Structures are given as structure tokens and as C-alpha cells.
């Protein structure tokens, strides 16, 4: 059980990078960008191809970001220069990505086994080795063996890697959106007309933000491909919904008042989402029903403000009615 939760936490942190990418477009630009379903796989594909051909996994992971940048750039051009609605522009790039990703991979699935004759080193391997060396040999029957098992497990290493990436990426984003350029991008999402009146090219702001978002998404794809020990042509399908679920769960629990809060909310939301999924899977849900489950969860979460409003109105109405009734009663007296 501990390992299941640990695995969910690790995977959640890796998805947290994805959720941050979705935040940049969905919350900051106010665009629902579907490119991510393609660039997530692109990231996984590039990393898998490089890692299996002997490139250092950390380097391969960083290079995979470039795939996302290109994807975001293309959607940005389609949207701002060719005036294609953002949603459709994203779908076009996502669709094109499918062919590109297949070309990159050469086949629909690249295994990244951690054991056996064809085993490869992923970003998690050196961390795991480090922990194993630190812990050293231990008695498997000792009472603290379960803890040592956990610490030397792949999930623990993945969690550490996830934490490092989440912190580094969050800090970079926090800095970037505080700069002149980052402020201009935030304003573009809020009021593009005003931004143009301030002499800023809103098209370029949108393109940059889409690039950053998809860069993060590709990074997440590269990490998750290595974590699940394979990159697959269809790994991006439904990813936007997972990203949105993480984002919204985080906002509901941590809040969204400031960017700092968002940066904490995103990984927290992603981890909680993963824990929920791990638990319902453990409870026996069919893996094929997972996407339906996620979609329903997101639909409910997105309508939460409305539902909340509805209940607030009802309770307010009841209170008001009570006040009026009390007044009427008083008058009678």
C-alpha cells in the first residue's frame, strides 16, 4: 500500500509539470490548448529515442523540451497569424504531431526497460543507485526493512526527481512571469486590447506562452515515458483532461489567489488526482473506464462554481425568507 501511494505521489509530481503547462494556457492566456495531447507524446518519443540510442537520460530529457517548444510555436502561428481559432489550431497541431511522433519513434511503442539485457538508464537510475549505495546491504527480515525497501525503490527515486523538477520549473516560471515580458503575457490573457494600446505585440506574447506551455508538457512526457518504462504513440490521449483535473483539484484545495499559490496548488492537485486514481484502481475499477471517470470528475469540478452559486442562492434565499417572516411576525405582535 505504501508503495502504491508513493508511486501515486511520484507520478503526480511528474504530471505536476504537465499541469503547470496547462495552467499557462488555460489560466494565464485563457485558451484551452489541445496541442498538449500531441506534444506530451513528442516529449516521450524524443526522450525514448535518445535514451535507447545511448544518450544520457538527463540530456535526452532536456532535449525533449525542444519538441514541445516547436509544437507550441506552430499552434501560435496558426492562431495568431493565420487567425485560426485557438481550439482548432491546437487540434490541428495535435493531429499533425501524431504523424511526426510516429516518424520520430519509427514504431508505435518504444520500451525503456530498467532490467534485462536491453535495459537502459533513465533519469531515475542514477538517483536510485545513489540511494541504494547510501543504504547499503541490509537484512531483509529486519523490522525496518520495509522502510529501506521503500527508500531504495524506483518510486522513491522518481518522487525525488519529481520534486526537483517541480521546484526548478516553478521557480523559473515564478521569475519569468514577474519580468516585463512575463507581465506583458499575463496582461495579454487578461485584456489584449489594453496590451496593444501599451505598445505590445499580443501575437508574440501568445506565441511565447504557447511555446513555454508545450515545452513543459513535453518535459512531463519525457519524464513520464521513462517512469512507466515505455513511450507510446497514444500516451497523450486524454492528457489535457488529466492536466485540467489536477489544476482544478489544486485550485479547489489550495486556492488560486496568487501565482505563488497556483504554483503550490498544481503539484498538490496532480498528486491528489493520482492518489484518487490509484485508490479507485485498487478498489477494482477497470483501467479502461479511467478516462470516463476522469472526464466526469473534471466536468463536475468545472461546474463547481455554478453549483456553489446555486447553493449560496438557496441558503441566502432561505435566510432572507426567515428574516422577512420574523419581521412579519413582529408586526403582528
Amino acid at each position, binding site marked *: 500500500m505504501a508503495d502504491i501511494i508513493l508511486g501515486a505521489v511520484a507520478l503526480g509530481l511528474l504530471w505536476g509539470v504537465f499541469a503547470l503547462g496547462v495552467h499557462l494556457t488555460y489560466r494565464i492566456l485563457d485558451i484551452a490548448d489541445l496541442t498538449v495531447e500531441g506534444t506530451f507524446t513528442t516529449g516521450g518519443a524524443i526522450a525514448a529515442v535518445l535514451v535507447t540510442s545511448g544518450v544520457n537520460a538527463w540530456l535526452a530529457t532536456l532535449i525533449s523540451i525542444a519538441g514541445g517548444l516547436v509544437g507550441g510555436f506552430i499552434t501560435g502561428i496558426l492562431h495568431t497569424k493565420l487567425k485560426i481559432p485557438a481550439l482548432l489550431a491546437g487540434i490541428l497541431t495535435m493531429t499533425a504531431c501524431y504523424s511526426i511522433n510516429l516518424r520520430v519513434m519509427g514504431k508505435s511503442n518504444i520500451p525503456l526497460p530498467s532490467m534485462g539485457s536491453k535495459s537502459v538508464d533513465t533519469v531515475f537510475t542514477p538517483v536510485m543507485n545513489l540511494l541504494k549505495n547510501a543504504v547499503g546491504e541490509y537484512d531483509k527480515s529486519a523490522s525496518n526493512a520495509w522502510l529501506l525497501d521503500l527508500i531504495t525503490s524506483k518510486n522513491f527515486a522518481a518522487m525525488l526527481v519529481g520534486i526537483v523538477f517541480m521546484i526548478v520549473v516553478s521557480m523559473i516560471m515564478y521569475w519569468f512571469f514577474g519580468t516585463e515580458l512575463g*507581465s506583458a503575457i499575463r496582461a495579454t490573457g487578461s485584456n489584449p486590447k489594453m496590451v496593444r494600446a501599451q505598445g505590445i505585440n499580443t501575437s508574440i506574447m501568445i506565441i511565447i506562452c504557447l511555446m513555454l506551455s508545450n515545452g513543459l508538457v513535453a518535459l512531463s512526457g519525457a519524464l513520464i515515458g521513462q517512469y512507466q518504462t515505455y513511450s507510446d504513440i497514444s500516451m497523450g490521449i486524454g492528457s489535457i483532461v488529466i492536466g485540467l483535473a489536477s489544476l482544478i483539484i489544486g485550485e479547489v484545495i489550495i486556492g488560486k489567489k496568487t501565482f505563488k499559490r497556483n504554483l503550490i496548488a498544481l503539484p498538490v492537485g496532480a498528486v491528489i488526482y493520482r492518489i484518487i486514481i490509484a485508490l479507485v484502481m485498487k478498489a477494482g475499477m477497470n483501467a479502461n473506464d479511467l478516462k470516463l471517470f476522469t472526464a466526469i470528475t473534471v466536468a463536475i469540478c468545472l461546474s463547481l462554481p455554478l453549483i456553489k452559486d446555486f447553493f449560496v442562492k438557496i441558503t441566502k434565499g432561505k435566510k432572507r425568507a426567515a428574516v422577512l417572516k420574523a419581521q412579519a411576525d413582529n408586526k403582528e405582535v
Partner: protein
Amino acid sequence: MLEIKNIHKIFNPGTINEKHALNGVSLRLEEGDFATVIGGNGAGKSTMLNAVAGVWGIDSGKIEINGTDVTTLPEHKRAKFIGRVFQDPMMGTAASMNIEENLALAYRRGKPRTLAWGIREKERKMYRELLSALNLGLEHRLTAKVGLLSGGQRQALTLLMATLQQPKILLLDEHTAALDPKTAAKVLEISEKIIGEQHLTAMMVTHNMKDAIVHGNRLIMMNNGKIILDVSGEEKKNLTVEGLLHRFAEISGDELDNDRMLLSK
């Protein structure tokens, strides 16, 4: 200085919605001119201001600002010459950002956006001083989200933003129309003060004829996409609302459509 030479703008050409919104408008504003602009609904006042700001390209004619031909420059490149305040208080600020962030964006109008930090400490001091001069208590609320401000506060802030980098031309498009009379008077007073202090060249569209007469050194009347009256100097000072209405009827051969015009004296 602003020079508009015989500009035309046709919306939706070739359709049943075709509208010749600017039909040969020419106008020259000298340095320091403050022109008020009046005219009925759909006369083309906003269209003229949008043409100057470059919201879209014009169909023919030429626009020069301080001798620079800006006719084909896109909106964001013209912005370094132009400060604008819109009718809708929502339009001039980024609601989800705070007061100092909005000011910092405007402080860099026309400048490239770099990876330098978006707002410097000494700017804050300047913003606080400028805001306190508005007398709206905003100087204590630098980090409040602009979305929380009232319409009047937002218009005053937008005005400050439009003039933070001194513009060659200030364009005010019915910027007090959405405000209650008291707030409108206050925002108008602030406008007058800033224009005077910075000796700005400005155009102010208003539907209040009295305001149009009282403020500025020139008065321009538009009708059907044309400028039909342009008075300045002594003549402008001696204008009355009745006189203006009379002149309008005389020139256009029509009654001024006055559903929104304030004819009060």
C-alpha cells in the same frame, strides 16, 4: 501634432452592412491643441479615434503624428505615440493584475519588454505620488487587483497610465460616459489637469455639449463620417448649447439626434 489627411474607412464593404464610417476626414491638431469632439450616434467619432490609434487599417488617406507617417503602422507600434482611454472602464486596464503592475505595463509603453524585473522599487514611489495626486486613496492600494476598483477609479487609473509616458496624442473616447455625474466630473477634472500640466495634444469625444464647450481650445462636430464644424479661439469661447444645435441644423439640414446628447447648460 496630429495631421489627418482625407481619410476614408468603409466597414463591411460590398455587403448589405456596408458603412462608410469615415468619409473624407481631414484635421490638423497643433502641438498643445485640446479638441473636444461631438456628434450624433454613429457619426464616426470613435472610428476617427480608432483610425488614429491604428485599430485597423484605413482605406485611403494619410495619418501623421509629429511628422511621422503612421498610416500603415500596426496598433502596437503606434502606441508609443498615443495614450488612450476608452468609454468602457473595463477596457483600459488588466483586471486580473494589480494597480502597480498595470502602471508598470504602461510606464514601458512603446519600449521592448525584456527579462528585467517587471517593476522597480523607485517606480513604486513615483506611482504612489502620482496616485495620491488623484485624491482617490489609491496610493495605499498599489497591490489591489484592478478588478476590485470602481469604474471611476479605473478610468482615473487608465488616464494616469495613458499619460505616464507622455504621449504625442491623447485620445479620450467618451471616457466619462459610463460614470455617474459626480465621478464623471471628477475624472474630467483630472483629465483637464493632466492635459494642462503636460501640455498634451488631445482629442476628447463627449456626448455632453456643455463639457465640449467648456473644455479645450477647439471644438469639432461630426456627422455622417465627416467633420462638419471646427471652431477654435474666441469663437469657441462664445459658443452656447443652443448656438451649437442651431449650427448643426443649419449645416447638416437635420436635427441633431439627441437621444444620448446632453443638452443641459
